[in-house]
């Protein structure tokens, strides 16, 4: 199917009244939870997973995708007005956005972020259309060794990029892989780690694990830092940026779109890394870098564009290779599996309505976000009056009722509770739930393909390195490991944290949540806030 035919079918799917309604619901929910403190995109998507049983597969992905990129818009609002990122990708926006608000320019800051996000999202959709079909054609050639290489690569990058402690993240990934083996062995039928419990024969339910770790775990963690409702002082006027604002930020938006697109495609990339990278790039390119941190509009436009572009392009590896590059996409992947859709290179051919429908819905969704955000910012800001405690009580009840509705089984409620406790303890001890869930989702693909490879290669490992595709991926992995280890040692010698971007992550506010490695932000900020627990909402003057 050509691009034109595909897009035609895609828009036919996306403009179907039901799907149109769910795009709207998705971006609206996304914006709302982006604004609300204490509930980020990962938690929300986890909480809404049971709903996807009731929907058509394409409709559920349209809804969840809308929540994802919608939350990128919502997070901006609180970053600019309160220096309080609603989700981690908006942390960078606080640097200059809040300064603009203090200078009475909150309106243009929000306006340029909305416009930039729209442009970034749209360019990324175009990139997705152009890049995905050839990539899927290539992926059809993939055999078992390639899948082993790709899944390992995905897990590796998620543990290395954007996490504070690669070893801790790797440890959690191993735990996720181990938890994935619970239940009947798919090849021999032997029960593994079931302890003769009938409920465990089919393994742990992905929905229950995700809802527990991200939903309940997040809610509990944020509750512990209960804070009072926020007062907005900044007045918002003149949302539409001036001609000069557009001129100043057009370059930043263009560069942010491209940068965000490519970082989003990378496993382990995603919103946080792209917004940080874009901010760094704009600051380096600026004639007068000292303006940054004092209300430079490029510092808002670039990162906001980049994080939206990346949240769209993150669908490329999922829809073409069947490999989710970050945790939010892992949840969406889970939603598709629940619906019995085989996600992989064949998706474009077997389920063109999903591939093209989701792409078309993203374009429509970005348009809706632009239309929603410019006039309604004032309304969304009012949501900040809702207190975290009230939100938590209702969210937890929805979680419990929701997970019961999946299998009508009380056992799943206990699984959610157990993983909720685990998720909360993990966040308190600096372990990240992100790598665990990603590894849990990818575990069975990895194991099946590993065993298949071993069977065909008669137990030899050289097949991984001699096949051109898997060999290339493994070589790439080796480069990443060597590079990051060397950099880590060099940084450690200078007394800096070992991980990539750890310094920037260090500055993040706790409670903000990231799709690449949920918990990064929280653990990153934990050290600084431990001394002063009230610091989180009062927003001490950071540079």
């Amino acid at each position, binding site marked *: 199917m050509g691009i034109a035919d595909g897009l035609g079918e895609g828009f036919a799917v996306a403009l179907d009244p039901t799907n149109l309604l769910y795009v709207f619901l998705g971006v609206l929910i996304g914006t709302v939870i982006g604004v609300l403190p204490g509930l980020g995109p990962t938690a929300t998507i986890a909480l809404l997973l049971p709903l996807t049983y009731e929907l058509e597969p394409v409709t559920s992905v349209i809804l969840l995708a809308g929540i994802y990129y919608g939350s990128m818009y919502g997070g901006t609002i609180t970053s600019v007005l309160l220096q309080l990122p609603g989700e981690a990708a908006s942390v960078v926006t606080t640097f200059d956005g809040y300064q603009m608000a203090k200078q009475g320019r909150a309106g243009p800051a929000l306006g340029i972020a909305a416009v930039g996000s729209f442009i970034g999202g749209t360019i990324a959709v175009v990139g997705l259309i152009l890049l995905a079909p050839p990539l899927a054609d290539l992926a059809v050639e993939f055999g078992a060794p390639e899948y082993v290489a790709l899944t390992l690569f995905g897990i590796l990058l998620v543990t290395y990029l954007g996490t*504070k*402690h690669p*070893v*801790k993240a*790797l*440890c959690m990934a*191993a*735990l996720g*892989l*181990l938890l994935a*083996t619970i239940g009947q*062995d798919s*090849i021999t039928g*032997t029960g*593994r*780690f079931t302890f003769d419990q009938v409920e465990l024969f089919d393994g742990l339910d992905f929905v229950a694990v995700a809802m527990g770790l991200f939903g309940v775990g997040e809610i*509990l963690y944020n*509750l*512990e*830092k*209960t804070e009072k409702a926020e007062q907005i002082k900044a007045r918002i006027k003149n949302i539409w940026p001036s001609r000069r604002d557009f001129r100043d930020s057009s370059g930043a938006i263009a560069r942010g779109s491209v940068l965000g697109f490519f970082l989003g495609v990378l496993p382990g990339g995603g919103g946080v890394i792209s917004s940080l990278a874009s901010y760094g790039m704009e600051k380096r390119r600026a004639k007068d870098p000292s303006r940054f941190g004092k209300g430079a509009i490029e510092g808002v436009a670039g990162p906001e564009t980049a994080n939206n572009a990346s949240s769209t392009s993150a669908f490329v590896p999922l829809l073409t290779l069947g490999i989710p590059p970050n945790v939010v996409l892992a949840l969406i992947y889970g939603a598709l599996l629940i619906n019995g859709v085989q996600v992989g290179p064949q998706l474009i051919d077997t389920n063109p309505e999903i591939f093209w429908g989701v792409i078309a819905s993203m374009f429509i969704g970005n348009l809706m976000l632009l239309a929603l955000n410019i006039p309604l910012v004032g309304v969304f800001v009012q949501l900040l009056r809702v*207190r*975290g*405690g*009230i939100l*938590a*009580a*209702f969210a*937890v*009840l*929805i979680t*419990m*009722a*929701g997970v*019961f*509705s999946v299998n*009508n089984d*009380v056992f799943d*409620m206990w699984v959610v*509770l157990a993983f*909720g*406790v685990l998720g*909360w*303890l993990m966040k*308190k*001890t*600096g*372990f990240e739930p992100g790598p665990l869930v990603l590894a849990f989702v990818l*575990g069975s693909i990895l*194991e099946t393909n*590993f*065993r298949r490879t*071993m*069977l065909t*290669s008669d*137990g030899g490992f050289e097949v991984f390195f001699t096949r051109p595709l898997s060999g290339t991926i493994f070589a790439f992995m080796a480069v990443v490991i060597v590079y990051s280890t060397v950099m880590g040692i060099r940084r450690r010698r200078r007394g800096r944290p070992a991980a990539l971007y750890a310094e920037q992550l260090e500055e993040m506010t706790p409670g903000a949540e990231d799709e690449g490695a949920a918990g990064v932000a929280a*653990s990153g900020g*934990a*050290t600084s806030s*431990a001394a002063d627990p009230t610091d989180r909402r009062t927003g001490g003057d950071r540079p």
Partner: protein
Amino acid sequence: MSKHLYRLAPLVLLLFGVTAMLQARDLSLGELSAPGPGLWPFIVASLLSLTALVLLVIDDPADYEPWTRGTAGIGLGLVSLAVFIVLFEQIGFLVPATLMLLFWLRLFAREPWKWAVPLAVIGAVVFHLLFAEGLGVPFPDDIVLGG
């Protein structure tokens, strides 16, 4: 001693990993050319144990947040959730949901009674209508509705 308390987390993970390795061995590992059901779990459990062992030595104590009074509150919240699940199985959704909402609204949101009570009752009824009536989820027999 207490300054080494943070090492508890890697230690638990290490024990967990080693136990899983032993269990996986009992499942029969097979050969690399003919992997048994225990081989893959054994490999990942080894990875878990290895990383946990490394963490036992190198982990950064600053990562671990102190236990505060808020933590005790979370403990109470968790107990209330467990009670909710037990009651839900016995007497249906409405009463346990109302009680749980009331408890959380008082404990975490510090709502005054005059707001907490109506919010909890309305919330429970709305969710009941949404899930049981709207989505047709078969909740256990409800004591209020006399099911």
